Every structure is written in C-alpha cells, then in structure tokens.
C-alpha cells in the first residue's frame, strides 16, 4: 500500500501539529505521523509540549502555587487557613487529565481539518518518501510532495548523572514524582530547572540548583536576571552558580552529588531526588535515511534556511529540530510559515520578536534585545523601568515583586526590548511584542490609554519612563 500526500509531517508536537493543521486548511492533502505512545500504548499527539513539557509543568506550577498561596499568603487578607494539605496523586491526576484533554483535542482538530493521523515511527527516505513503521511493526512507504520534519528534541543526558528513573530523573520523570522529596537537587538552573524547582519548593522540598554557568539566566537581560535571582532566593531556592557536577553516586535511597564550585573547591551534597535538566538536543535518531539528502550541523540540528527548507528539495524542518530558541510557539509559527509557503504563499517569520517566558511566580518574560546586546551593538539607548511595588493593582493583589524594563533606541525611540519579572509577565510582555511588530516607539506606548487599575499600567509607566515622563515614580535624571 502506497499512499500519496501533498504534505507529510513527522511529529505532532506544537510545531508538527500546527503545520499539519495549517497545511490541511490550505487544501493540501496532509498526513501527520506520531510515535509517542501513552501509558496504555496508544498513539497520542502533542509531542513533548503537551505530554511531558509545557502543559504538565504549568499544571503542576499552578497547583503548587495555589497550595503555597493557601498555606502562606492568605493571612494578610484576613483569611486563616489550617490543615492545608497537598494530595500529590490528585495533583498528578489533574495534570494527566489536562494532558488527555489536550492531546485528544489535537486528534479532534486533525479530524476536523482532514489531517490523516498516523501513529508509528516516521523515517525520511530519499526522494521525499517516508517510511512508516506503525505501532504493530508493519512497514509502509508513503509518497509525499513535501515533507516537514518536526521530531522535536530530547533532554540532554550527562554521563556524570545517569538517569535511573527513580532517584535520578530528567524533566519527564520530574513530572511524575509521587511524593514530596525532602531534599531535591536540580542540575541546571535554566527555565526548566527553575520551574520544576519551584513546584517542589512550594510543596515543601529543600531545593538546591547547581548551575555550571557563572551567570544566572545568562541569555536574559542582566538587570532582570539579577532581580529574578533575588526573588527566587528569597523564596527559598538555593541557586549555586559556577557549580559543575563531576559525579553522582546512588547510596541506597539517596543520591550523592559531587560538584566543583566556582572557586575550584570540591563539594558533595546529598539529595533524595535529583533532576537533570541541562538543556535539550534536537532529536534526529532514526529520523533520516543515509541518502535522505538532509544535512545536520555540528550540533546535530537540522540545517535549514530562513524559510526552514533543508538541503533536500521539498523537505522542511521546524521547531526544536532547527536553529533558534527551543520554544513551542517558535516551532508553531515555523510550521505555519512552511505550510503557507508550500501552498504558494510568501510567508516569513519574524525571529526578532519572539517572546520567551519562565513560568515561575513571579513570571519572568522577555522579548527583543537585552540591554547587553544593544550595548554590544554600539547603539545608543534609553531605559525605562517601573517596579510592581508602585502599582496599585499589584498592591491590591498583594503581588508586588518585580519590575518592567523597556529599552528604546535613543535617537529613534523605537522599542528594542522589553524584560519583565513580575505577576503576569508573560501577558504584559505580549503587549509590548505586539507594539514592536508595528514598529512602535516608547512614546507610542506612552500615548496609548491603559486601563486603571491594571497590571498593564506598569508597561505604560515603564514606556513613559524611557523618555523621563513617568508619572507614578520619580524619573531618573538623564545622563546627557
């Protein structure tokens, strides 16, 4: 049996399923192959994001935050709480049901849009053929006019801390921990480490994060990274920078971690659970036949051009497989771009305005360039900041940590970047991202009417502050 499709997508994570749906919307005969199986052995869509990534982690973050709030943060409102307890299995059950709902939703969207959902492993052969090995082992070859590779990424494994699925886990395992570990070690204080660390910290763990880099959140704006570290440290996260793990040893029901500190001294620390989250790598194992024509670069990502086309004609790659930030929405938009281009549109993607978010509380979010990047480029700039402690709405919500920072070009006033740590940072940054898409200046945002009292006003004030016109904080004296 050989089927012919206009588009075959390998992978149904946020990049793949969005590409498949868009392609089908544009009238292309589309199939989407997914190899992920749930615990019952059934093929499910959604990839890492839905099954073991974005969604489950957010579910746990919200559940744990509510627990923390109920336990610690309601007294000030006059509410007394006693006997607040966390039923971990129930929390996990809720997480799982959300996952089921969403993955089922994708299957439903496929049906509604006429995407042929195939379950099994897809492998790209030469000549735009895809070999499908289904979950029963049967092999078929599918003919495609276009192939979109969207097989995503896997957590990077480090030899010094090999997973055993029990005491040493990766991010996937971290989402299934059944009881609160007393002492939790996290190797890697990046986005995933901070989020997972936050979850268990709120639920009562002592959390130590071991970060090999000397700088905290090195790729983020330094001012915001500094502010964030202060906040997280106050929350109880023990963040150790410049700490390189050199070995782990399982000792009964504990794991002992050996690491070198920034000053070269060696340390040992024992944990009840160790999460390894040092980054992710593009997942190309078994994806490409030797003669597929697709090239990988030295880091193992699939090499593509600005329109996500690989070296092989008619073959595209999107999402975590290719260059750029490993963000679900970046993959999704690449999927849309590729589907539209296949359908004959002239779609492009704006990689300069891609928001990124850390879903701790307070959230950390940013879009555009950091102050360091602008400075390194030699561009003159102005900065406007506004603390949530000066926001009436934040005060009313008793959520006043953090600040908004907006950077604009000194000569043209064009907004170059926005960085926020604070409540709803993700949604606030999105507002600025939209403004940046239209070439807004800081003054444009300043001239926009913002509702009061909202958290959004912090964005308004920060924008005004860029040009020394903030109302609700004294303006910094300009150096010029």
């Amino acid at each position, binding site marked *: 049996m050989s089927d012919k499709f206009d588009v075959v997508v390998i992978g149904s994570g946020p990049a793949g399923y969005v590409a498949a749906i868009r392609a089908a919307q544009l009238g292309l005969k589309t199939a989407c192959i997914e190899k992920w199986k749930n615990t019952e052995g059934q093929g499910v869509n959604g990839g890492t994001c839905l099954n073991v990534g974005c969604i489950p982690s957010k579910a746990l973050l919200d559940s744990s935050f509510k627990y923390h709030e109920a336990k610690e943060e309601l007294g000030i409102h006059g509410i007394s709480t006693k006997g607040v307890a966390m039923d971990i299995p129930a929390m996990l059950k809720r997480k799982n049901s959300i996952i089921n709902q969403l993955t089922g939703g994708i299957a439903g969207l496929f049906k509604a849009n006429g995407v042929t959902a195939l379950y099994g492993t897809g492998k790209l052969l030469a000549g735009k053929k895809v070999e499908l090995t289904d979950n029963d082992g049967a092999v078929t070859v599918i003919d495609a006019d276009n192939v979109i590779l969207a097989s995503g990424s896997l957590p990077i494994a480090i030899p010094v801390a090999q997973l055993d699925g029990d005491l040493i886990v990766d991010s996937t395992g971290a989402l299934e921990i059944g009881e609160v570990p007393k002492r939790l070690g996290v190797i890697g204080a990046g986005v995933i480490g901070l989020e997972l660390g936050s979850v268990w910290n709120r639920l009562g763990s002592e959390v130590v994060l071991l970060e090999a880099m000397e700088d905290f959140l090195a790729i983020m704006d330094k001012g915001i990274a500094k502010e964030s570290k202060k906040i997280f440290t106050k929350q109880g996260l023990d963040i150790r920078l410049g700490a390189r793990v050199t070995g782990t040893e399982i000792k009964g029901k504990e794991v002992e971690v050996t690491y070198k500190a920034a000053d070269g001294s060696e340390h040992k620390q024992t944990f009840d659970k160790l999460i390894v989250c040092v980054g992710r790598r593009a997942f190309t194992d078994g994806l490409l036949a030797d003669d597929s024509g697709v090239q990988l670069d030295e880091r193992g990502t699939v090499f593509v051009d600005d329109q996500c086309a690989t070296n092989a004609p008619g073959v595209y790659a999107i999402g975590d497989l290719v260059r750029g930030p490993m963000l679900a929405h970046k993959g999704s938009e690449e999927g849309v771009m590729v589907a539209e281009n296949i359908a004959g549109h002239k779609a492009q993607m704006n990689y300069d305005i891609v928001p990124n978010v850390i879903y701790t509380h307070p959230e950390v979010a940013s879009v555009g360039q950091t102050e360091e990047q602008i400075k390194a480029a030699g561009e003159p700039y102005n900065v406007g900041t506004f603390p949530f402690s000066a926001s009436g709405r934040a005060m009313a919500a008793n959520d006043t940590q953090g600040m908004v920072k907006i950077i604009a070009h000194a000569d043209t006033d*064009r907004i170059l970047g926005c960085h926020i740590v604070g409540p709803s940072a993700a949604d606030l940054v999105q507002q600025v991202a939209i403004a940046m898409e239209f070439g807004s200046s800081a003054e444009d945002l300043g001239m926009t009417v913002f509702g009061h009292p909202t958290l959004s006003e912090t964005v308004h004030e920060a924008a005004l502050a860029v040009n020394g016109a903030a109302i609700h904080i004294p303006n910094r004296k300009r150096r010029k």
Partner: protein
Amino acid sequence: MAIEIKAPTYPESVQEGTLATWHKNVGDSVSRDELLVDIETDKVVLEVVAPANGVLAEVLKAEGETVESNEIIARIEEGAAAAPGAATPAAKQEEVDIQVAESLVNPAAKKLADERDIDLSQVSGTGKGGRITKEDVVNFVPPATAPAAAPAVAAVADAEFEVGERVERRVAMSRMRTRIAERLLDVTHTTASLTTFNEVDMSALMGLRRQYQDEFTKTHNGTRLGFMGFFVKAAVEALKRFPLVNASIDGTDIVYHGYQDIGVAVSTDRGLVVPVLRNAENMSIATVENSISSYAGKARDGKLTIDEMTGGTFTITNGGVYGSLLSTPIINPPQSAILGMHTIQQRPVAVNGQVEIRPMMYLAMSYDHRLIDGKEAVQFLVTIKQLIEDPAKILLEI
C-alpha cells in the same frame, strides 16, 4: 521654449493627409518619442511623435481636418515637467497610495511630524504594512537637501523626467510588440535572408496617374489611383513568371502556391500589420486600391481580423511614406520574399546618353536564399522594374 510640431514630409505619391487621432490633449505632458497624433494618408497612417519632453501647449489642427505635408499642427512647450497631479494612471495610483499611507501612521510619528512641520506624504514608512513609525520621521531628511527622499509608494514606471537627467524608463512590452519581436527574431534565425536592390524610374507611372486620375476616381466611386495598385499587379505578374518567389518552404518540401496573395504592410500605432489581398491575380487595380484603403482604415481602428492578416504568399512594404531611401526589408514568414518600396527622389540619371532629372525609387527585395537563388531574385526584381517603367507591359503580360 516652444517647439513646432509639423506633419511629416509626404512622399511625392501622397498629396495630403487627414488628421486622424490626437493621443494627447492640450496641457498634457509629453515625453520624447511619445506618440502625439496619427495622420492618415491614402496608404497608411503616419505617426507623429514628440521630439522632446514638455507639455502640449497648442493644437492647431483638429481631428478630421486636412493636413498638408510639413504643415504645423501643434506646439510643445519644451521642458515643462508635468504637475504632480497629472492625470496619468500612475500618478493617480500614487495619490491614492499616499492617502492610504497617511492613515497608517503611528501616533508618536504623527505627533513628531506635526511638531517638526514634516509632510507625512513625503515620509516612507518602514513599519508593518508601510506604517510610518516615529523612527521614520526622526530619520526623515527633507528632499531639498537629499533628493533621494522617495514617496510612500513609488510608481516609477510612468514617472515624468526633467530634461537633462540621465534616467531610464522601463515599460513592459505590449503583447503585440512581444509577438512582433518573437516573429522577427525567428525569421532572422530560420531564413538565409539576403537583399537585392534595383531602382525604378517612376516617371511613366506618374504620368499615367496624372493623366487618368480624375477619370479613374469618377469611374470607381471616389477610389483614388495610387501606385500600390500598379505595384501589386506588377508583383503578381512577376510572381507568375518566377513561381519560386511565390513559394514557401515547409519542412523539407517546397510548396508552390497556385495563387498570389499579396500582403501589404500597414503601420498602426501598435505596430506593423500586414493585411492580405487574396487572389490579387484576379483583382483589378481599382479593387486593389479599394482593398488597401479599407484595410488601412481597419488597421487604424484595430479592426483587422486574424483571417485578413494570415496567409499571403508575397508582401510589399513601403518605407517611402516615411522618407526611406533604401532599406533591407525583413521577410514575412512563411513567405520567401518581400518587396520594399521607397521614397521617390528626383535624381539625375543617364537616359539615352543624357543626364536627366527623373523621379527615381529604389527597390529592395529580401529573399530566402534557401529557396531562391541570386539569379532568380535579381531577375524577379528586374522584371518588376521593367513592368513599372513601362506599365503597358503589365497589361500585355510581356
């Protein structure tokens, strides 16, 4: 500075013309080589183009009026560039685009433009969808100091030029022009085209015409006696004597046509067209003259049908109406030869040992050497010459 626009010098065979169509109105800007007006003569429509950039200032002859050779018909004011609001489609498009652009201005950009007295229609927008951002206004340099400040949407294709600028104008070829270009290029690639020349003393023919013009016109309901009738009949006679010239190559076959369909080249404002006189061997001179005149009219109105323009076994073209002394006409495929007529020029020639001033016309015949050898071509042309110089020979078929 005013330039006089005159009707072209009509060849001797053309007495007068009629002003057919004005393509520009008073006040319109014109650019060099742009078509101004059509003047219709017996044979063909003459095009008059603008000699320089400027504005059509004065029109002295209206459509339908008689125009003599070299008569002044209009005046152009040289150099005056069109006002920006000129009613050319491109300028109109620009206006619309500018209006649209003004509504796509970021708030701070508008504020700054107001403060700095900047005309937003002069600012090019770099924001999404052409929006003018504050950055664009900040970076804006007024045109006085930087001539490169482009309008929001530049419609360059039909822009008017200042005299003296070394600029270019890019216009897409019309379908007809593209087709003509293709065919002519094809012909030069697929035929072994040569040209043989001769000259003909037109005095006998001109005498004949002078003598019988009035009677001819009266008898044949207003049809005027020109030269084409004679040339067509002469060609028909010569083609009968040299059937190879009337033949065409089809693959590896020679196709001899048992009829003479003579194409007569007519110039229109869209290009050259060649309507065909079918079975010209059966046409009287009056019929030929009538047909040509009617074809010319249809061609001018763009009403020639494809049928009227296809086929033909031989073509006659007359560059003489434009003043051409000598030329190498290009063969009209799939025909094998073409006769070119030229201007009649009073020249001293030797006649019976004496120098006399005679009205001479150079004749050129381009032929496909794959089929026709030099000897035949030359003799064919000599035959034409002899028939024209002694028209009785046409009648007597000698």
